[in-house]
């Protein structure tokens, strides 16, 4: 441990912290979640430029501030009032909104480095983080790249070369690995040689983006087409990779940390199996699946690989693990991962701090035996997307109200947005990374439930309903998960929380009580002499609460802030403060604390409540209004089988039909690109195209009419 120059007492404190067992602490008192203490005498850089945006830029700036380093933010024009720009000491605009013209614009970023005199660059993840060209240009100007050497980026960035190196370093690799693919037919041939199923993805890309699975020749061709387009648009490199696809695997990765002196550590694993469309949704550390010997074997192989490429800085070695705990090297990410906070929680290390130290050339403080697993950490990726559409299609909008649950203990929220921020079509739709930790997994999970319930997000559709369902699902709780978890658990798509008789009663009772509270408030006109002297507060409210198609008669009686609701033959007691202005609605229902959220309430009795993560729309009417409402005609909704509307905001990449064409069921009609994902929209039935309302290159909003069928 490099603690030269520290007073003996501080030294003891450091040791004590290092070996302290996990103690839950309240964030209000203890904002940082690191057990190591930054050594102020260790000089690193005066000024660092962060070549990124959003939460990761903010995350890096936080550590820089702790280390007394000046920070420079870069931003696109639409991001000029973004949180990372406000947090940084200096900010430079590097171009217009599209990433290719701003955050990927190396010339502009190099200019920003020169003009601000930054000595080092932290690239975050994505964008230029694994771009060897960028690293080279920095090196050429004597600017430190906070990450591994160009050599390691290049070696690991190329999926083909990385496997060869991995093999040579005695790391388990996936069978059936092949080579670079140039045409669709070549792709088919390779796929056939390997044997289906195969996985197709961009050679240059990290993560799940651009990754598609093919089970036959047809799907291989389609996968080739999409992946090469995406590869070209995201990475400017249309090379592809095809390999054997391991069915029902777990995705477990090892965090490594290495210095420039040949030292490398493994910082335990992260379980990232819960994914949708090959993008991670919920991660945890450690994994319920690994035993100490498997963990060690994976960790040691990861370190072998890191050493084989003279890796320095933080990196991640991803493995696929099958049900028999065989593990295969997938790829190495030569950057800080999105999900690094959970590793920080269980090890107490600040990975960004370590990256900066290592980049400056310091040796690692720690030895392998110093790396603990303290407690358990879970991360939920909170996205601006609609989980009811293929587990999450991007949504955009303005965060009209936004409150992070940071007042809760043991909750860490990494975000780069605030109330009033815009979630735009230009960037990743992630709102935040919500991390909870506890001494045990159960504790961390229960904290996650609380955190999700207390998280206020208005103005954009978000995936909290799905996140809460995942972390409370019996299969997830038992640790029985794989990368197919979502499609297996929700074969017909995600439908929100399914109420049981008792929870339905709680929901109905809460809605009824809220309705009465609001009605009573309407009668409280202050200082008005002209309100009847003898106001009639009825002692018992007879109401009907409609949920879905079912109408439930309820009666409500009030005593102070406690409402006793008779619903479906049972008595439910609901108690709360009944603030009609707060988005959060903390209630005690039959002596159980529940955090509901009041999403909307209108004059016609419609109340939308978020309950157990899912939003439920109910309608509360007086008995009389409900009776009279039965005379009201049902209005016929729009026929949706003959119109195609954009399921999300984005850009029309291609329109495959024109008016008069006949389309078959499932035939592609057009392709919408949003958040760098290409989505093919298909016909729901065979029909003739009546009219086309969009053309390639156009920007469309959610719900915009694209094509009409006859």
């Amino acid at each position, binding site marked *: 441990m490099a603690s030269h120059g520290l007073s003996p007492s501080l030294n003891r404190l450091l040791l004590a912290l290092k070996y302290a067992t996990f103690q839950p602490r309240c964030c209000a008192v203890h904002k940082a979640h690191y057990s190591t203490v930054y050594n102020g005498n260790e000089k690193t850089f005066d000024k660092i430029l962060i070549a990124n945006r959003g939460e990761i830029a903010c995350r890096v700036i936080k550590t820089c501030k702790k280390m007394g380093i000046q920070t420079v933010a870069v931003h696109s024009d639409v991001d000029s009032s973004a949180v990372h720009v406000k947090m940084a000491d200096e900010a430079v605009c590097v171009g217009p909104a599209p990433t290719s013209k701003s955050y990927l614009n190396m010339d502009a970023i190099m200019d920003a480095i020169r003009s601000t005199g930054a000595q080092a660059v932290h690239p975050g993840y994505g964008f230029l983080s694994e771009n060897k060209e960028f690293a080279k240009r920095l090196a050429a100007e004597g600017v430190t790249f906070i990450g591994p050497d160009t050599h390691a980026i290049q070696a690991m960035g190329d999926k083909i070369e990385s496997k060869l190196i991995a093999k040579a370093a005695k790391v388990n690799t996936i069978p059936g690995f092949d080579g670079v693919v140039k045409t669709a037919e070549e792709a088919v041939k390779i796929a056939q040689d390997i044997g289906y199923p195969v996985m197709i993805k961009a050679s240059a890309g990290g993560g799940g983006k651009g990754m598609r699975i093919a089970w036959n020749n047809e799907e291989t061709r389609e996968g080739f087409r999409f992946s090469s387009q995406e590869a070209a648009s995201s990475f400017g490199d249309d090379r592809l990779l095809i390999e054997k696809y391991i069915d029902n695997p777990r995705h477990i990765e090892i965090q490594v940390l290495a210095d420039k002196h040949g030292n490398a550590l493994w910082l335990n694993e992260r379980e990232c199996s819960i994914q949708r469309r090959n993008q991670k949704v919920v991660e945890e550390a450690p994994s319920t699946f690994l035993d100490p010997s498997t963990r060690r074997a994976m960790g040691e192989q990861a370190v072998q690989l890191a050493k084989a490429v003279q890796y320095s800085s933080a990196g991640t070695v991803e493995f696929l693990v099958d049900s028999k705990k065989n593990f295969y090297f997938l790829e190495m990410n030569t950057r800080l991962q999105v999900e690094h906070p959970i590793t920080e929680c269980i090890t107490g290390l600040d990975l960004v701090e370590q990256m900066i130290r290592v980049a400056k050339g310091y040796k690692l403080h720690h030895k392998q035996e110093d790396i603990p697993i303290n407690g358990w950490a879970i991360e939920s990726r909170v996205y601006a997307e609609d989980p009811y559409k293929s587990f999450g299609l991007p949504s955009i909008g*303005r965060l009209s109200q936004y409150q992070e649950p940071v007042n809760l203990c043991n909750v860490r929220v990494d975000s780069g947005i605030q109330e009033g921020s815009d979630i735009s079509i230009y960037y990743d739709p992630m709102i935040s990374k919500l991390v909870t930790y506890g001494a045990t997994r159960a504790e961390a999970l229960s904290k996650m439930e609380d955190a999700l319930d207390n998280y206020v997000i208005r103005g954009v559709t978000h995936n909290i309903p799905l996140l809460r369902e995942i972390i409370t699902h019996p299969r997830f709780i038992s640790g029985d998960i794989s990368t197919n978890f979502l499609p297996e658990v929700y074969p017909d798509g995600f439908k929100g929380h399914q109420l049981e008789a008792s929870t339905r009663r709680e929901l109905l009772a809460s809605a009824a009580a809220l309705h009465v509270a609001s009605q009573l*408030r*309407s009668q409280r*006109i202050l200082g*008005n002499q002209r309100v009847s002297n003898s106001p009639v507060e009825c002692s018992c409210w007879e109401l009907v609460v409609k949920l879905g198609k079912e109408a439930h008669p309820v009666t409500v009686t009030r005593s102070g802030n406690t409402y006793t609701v008779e619903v479906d033959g049972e008595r439910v007691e609901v108690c709360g403060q009944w603030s009609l202005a707060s988005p959060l609605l903390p209630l005690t229902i039959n002596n159980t604390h529940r955090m509901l959220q009041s999403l909307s309430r209108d*004059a*016609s009795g419609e109340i939308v409540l978020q309950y157990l993560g899912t939003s439920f729309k109910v309608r509360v009417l007086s008995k*009389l209004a409900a009776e009279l409402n039965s*005379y009201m*005609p049902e209005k016929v909704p729009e026929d949706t089988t003959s119109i195609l509307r954009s399921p999300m905001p984005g850009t029309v990449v291609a329109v495959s039909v024109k008016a008069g064409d006949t389309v078959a069921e499932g035939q592609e009609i057009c392709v919408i690109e949003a958040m760098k994902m290409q989505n093919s929209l298909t016909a729901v039935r065979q029909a003739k195209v009546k009219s086309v309302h969009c053309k390639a290159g156009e920007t469309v909003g959610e719900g915009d009419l694209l094509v009409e069928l006859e």
Partner: protein
Amino acid sequence: HPVVAALPQSSSQRDCRWYSVSNLSVKERIEKKRKAALLGGGQKRIDAQHKKGKLTARERVELLLDPESFVESDMFLEHRCSDFGMEQDKNKFPGDSVVTGRGRINGRLVYVFSQDFTVFGGSLSGAHAQKICKIMDQAMTVGAPVIGLNDSGGARIQEGVESLAGYADIFLRNVLASGVVPQISLIMGPCAGGAVYSPALTDFTFMVKDTSYLFITGPDVVKSVTNEDVTQEELGGAKTHTTVSGVAHRAFENDVEALLNLREFFNFLPLSNQDPAPIRECHDPNDRLVPALDTIVPFESTKAYDMLDIVHAIVDERDFFEIMPNYAKNIVVGFARMNGRTVGIVGNQPKVASGCLDINSSVKGARFVRFCDAFNIPIITFVDVPGFLPGTAQEYGGIIRHGAKLLYAFAEATVPKITVITRKAYGGAYDVMSSKHLRGDVNYAWPTAEVAVMGAKGAVQIIFRGKENQAEAEAEYVDKFANPFPAAVRGFVDDIIEPSTTRKKICRDLEVLASKKQVNPWKKHANIPL
């Protein structure tokens, strides 16, 4: 009261024949009449009404008012027509074709009439009009709003001129009550011919979608006169009047939703011009900061944003009752509360036509401002206006005359007036939008405000006509005028405020301004440019 004295008091003619054949005691007769009155035109017609997706007159009243608060008047009143067989017993309905009385909405007094379509199609007889006039007179005497639930086929043709006289009696009262007590019309069925002018004279007209119509003449007459083919819905349905003509202020899905919304709407209104704007118990902190507002105005001054986002963020509980949400959408008007107190909100809407003022938006704004002023409701104005809309359509349509209405309304208003310039305040439109010069009490500018005669480009083209280096001149102009300073140094805005503090500041100002007293010079009445 002079109005009451002017009433035509027709003596009720007793039907002696009925008495002679009846053996029933008076008490039983009363019961029988009451029962009959409650059934209106009878069960068959009630069923027919329900089948059309409509409620009966009494059901509507019951739903509108607090439980058991309805006090009916003239339940026994009958029509006096003796022509065309109308004198027969079967053509007499106790209460005739309208239900009238008073009641309470959330404890506050209101007078109501509800036309009964099951009795002669809700047609207006002399008796029907007399009932309406009676409660309108009472409403004015005690100072309470009048709500009319309209569902009437038109004049009672059998009565001829007596029916027409009835209409005129109502119109007169509508006019005399205007500005004295709030008057609201909810159109829940047909309302055609001369009948449309009563709702037109009231302060607010709401409609029920698919079941209500307002027109001077129906599709048949239109066809014969102008040879136009048009459906009832297209000619005078809720959509037409809330989006095209601007006759109606809001439309609701069905009777139940309309009545429940009317209750909610009523909560915003003072009872009369002698009463202050109501203050409801408020749970939203009056000093709440709204950080979201600091980033709401885009950097590019040509980029749009939604003024409703600002309104929702500032007012209590994001609760905003918008008036005419689908008509002249370049201006936003409606009711909200600040620290519980009702306020009227007026805002230019940059999202629609850049928020410019044109004929329709000026008229929409002017009428709303005048309502607020008449009923002691403070006005909060959010300004982002690039000017008046140019073009022949506007000039020929009389934008000068109509634009003047908004100017007139703001200038004349003596209620508390608070103005927030969020971005552009250009040209004459700056003056119009509740500027300091029109007796604005508190005028704020956000840091993004630009008060100028016009945008930089246009200005530079005039000032530096023919000169090279327009771009440089434009930059100079922007530097000089595209900011709040020119107005602030002259005292035309009182302060430049952080947007996030807007709610807090307005709440504080309203408290102070509650005792504002300002009187316009005596006049018989003013002469707004109609």
